[in-house]
């Protein structure tokens, strides 16, 4: 078994927390994990990506080879599209529907949606609305993660455990909000 995920978004959208939850979940399930992330310059509102690989055998490359990503998990639709050359032929995109426009020449929303839906199996989610219903828009990234978890294998309970561990220092309210976001994301049907 080997699974490759690209997690993509914009600096500040919580890409690294999403990756961390999958990492811990995979490690606790006894799997090999490699996760390459982008620090530095890109965090000030630039594109951010993480390459995440989990496997039951040794993983060599920290970067996912082209054409071998099972899923692109994105918090922003144009960022989802940025990495499609990495996607497997029958790979899946799970992305938040809301655009974050902080650069010149951002594509027209309709064109963007059409591009996403036309070629690829793509699930778009109004993650902000679901996150708000859990108490904070800041959990949008976890909603996306919940929806993506349907495609990643590994028990739901393991994810919940990882969320509890990673957010424990922030208090029970934050933990519960994130669990709510994860579960509602997981139940989401396109």
């Amino acid at each position: 078994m080997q699974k490759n995920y690209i997690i993509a978004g914009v600096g500040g959208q919580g890409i690294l927390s999403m990756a961390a939850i999958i990492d811990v979940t995979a490690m606790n399930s006894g799997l090999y994990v490699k996760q390459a992330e982008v620090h530095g310059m890109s965090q000030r509102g630039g594109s951010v990506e993480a390459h995440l690989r989990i496997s039951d055998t040794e993983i060599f490359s920290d970067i996912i080879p082209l054409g071998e990503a099972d899923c692109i998990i994105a918090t922003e639709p144009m960022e989802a599209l940025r990495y499609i050359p990495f996607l497997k032929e029958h790979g899946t995109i799970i992305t938040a529907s809301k655009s974050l426009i902080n650069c010149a020449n951002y594509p027209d929303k309709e064109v963007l949606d059409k591009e996403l839906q036309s070629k690829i199996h793509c699930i778009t989610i109004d993650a902000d609305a679901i996150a708000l219903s859990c108490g904070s828009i800041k959990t949008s990234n976890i909603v996306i993660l919940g929806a993506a978890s349907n495609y990643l294998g590994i028990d739901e309970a393991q994810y919940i455990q990882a969320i509890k561990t990673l957010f424990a220092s922030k208090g029970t309210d934050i933990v519960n909000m994130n669990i709510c976001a994860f579960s509602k994301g997981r139940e989401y049907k396109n």
Partner: protein
Amino acid sequence: MNKKLLLGAEAVAVAAIDAGISGVYAYPGTPSTEITTYIQNSAEAREKNIHSRWSANEKTAYEAALGMSYSGKRALICMKHVGLNVAADAFINSAITGCNGGMVLLVADDPSMHSSQNEQDTRMYGKFAYLPLLEPSNQQELYDAVKYAFDFSEKISLPIIVRVTTRLSHSRAVVVQSDKRPQNALNPSTQENSWILLPANARKNYANLLEKQTQLLEESEQSFLNKSIQGSGNIGVIAFGIAYNYAMEIKTTHALDCGVLKISHYPLPLKTIEAFVKNYKTIVIAEEGYPIYEELLPAYFPHTTFVGRLTGALPRMGELNPKLLGESLGITLPVHHASSDIVVPRPPQLCQGCGHRDLFEELNHILEKYEHKHVFSDIGCYTLGALPPFNTISTCVDMGASITMAKGAADAGLHPAICVIGDSTFTHSGMTGLLDAVNDESSITVIISDNSTTAMTGGQDSSGTGKLYDICKGIGVLPEHIHLVVPIKKNREHNIRILSQEIEYKGVSVIISQRECVQVAIRNQKKS
């Protein structure tokens, strides 16, 4: 068994603590920063009283570590690749003095220049100084290599370099910790002559260093970091450091019959290489960095064909990856979904509410009336003033160069000669340049954009916080030409007046434009 999910950078930190360091000395720089931050935040390190405060620059860091080593204790030094240019004098000479307590220099290179000015290859520095260099390929190896490096350093009485690249430093994997070792007791060196590099001593020490090369080579030949995987085909890959991962990825996924030799320990183990090379017709040289050994090896093995960055089998510059290694071995990775041409770049930006923004707006306003609109600048968040909507700055070369370049331009007759430098960059290497300008009474306007942090690399403490005014005054800038301004909308007219006036002053003036970094403010708020 203690298992942890660690970034490469964090694996270095954990290894150094486990190896019994008494101090880490560093100046921030992507992708090396997280090593020191990890140690600063580690309760264990605090309990053990391990020094971890940031140094003013890489040279002061290196020399402090050398002093700790002189005293018999172990020290780790961390920097990004260009930092070693700053520390180079201390570094090269420390190969001549040798060390007492174990000393490991961790340098993080940045092929593809993800966040750097160049992609210089630290392995060159290893050769240059005649020091051993380790280049592990994964996080576990990195942990093991750092611990080994401290022991080896003490055994051979030389500093050891460990080179990582962005990919390894910023990639996470599970690391298993091994035994912890206590710190060394205070045990100052008694070999006085070897530390006093008067020519007579230096010659003796240098001869000694050259003599040690045989021993260093033997160590490389037996290194646990090198690994040979024989293949049945005609092609062999010599993969250096992390390039091994890409070669193995392609070999295993596509069931190739090529051999792979991983080299992670220098000086180059030629016997190991010879034993490998003789089994193949063609050798692909995969180096994550300069084609240093691709230039060298063909002379040793005239009957073998070598391909790599110099022959076009791999690109001449930039980071390697599975796709590129695949192509060098005749495998094209499939692209099922072509890039979409509606996707546009999303460059990083100055945060909303950042004081650098207001400063650039003020400067742009002032410069409208000048023919020459050149602003010498430096490295930090404020370098983003090069991008729209500001387009304010004209230069960014190396840390501290803004002040000295403005001075040289003023000497050449350029007016105005304005420079913008961050507070951390100023204390890193701007102060000496300011002294030159003061001594020469150069007509320059120095703007220190002071956000009281090292923001670019994630908001580390800045050495000069609260001291900038006094430093400038002490260097000899006249107090009436040192101004403190706060770059907010409300003060815009006032700031423009002061800046305009000082730009016309025929001498050195310093404007400290002071406003807290919003990211640090948010972080501090969360903490309290």
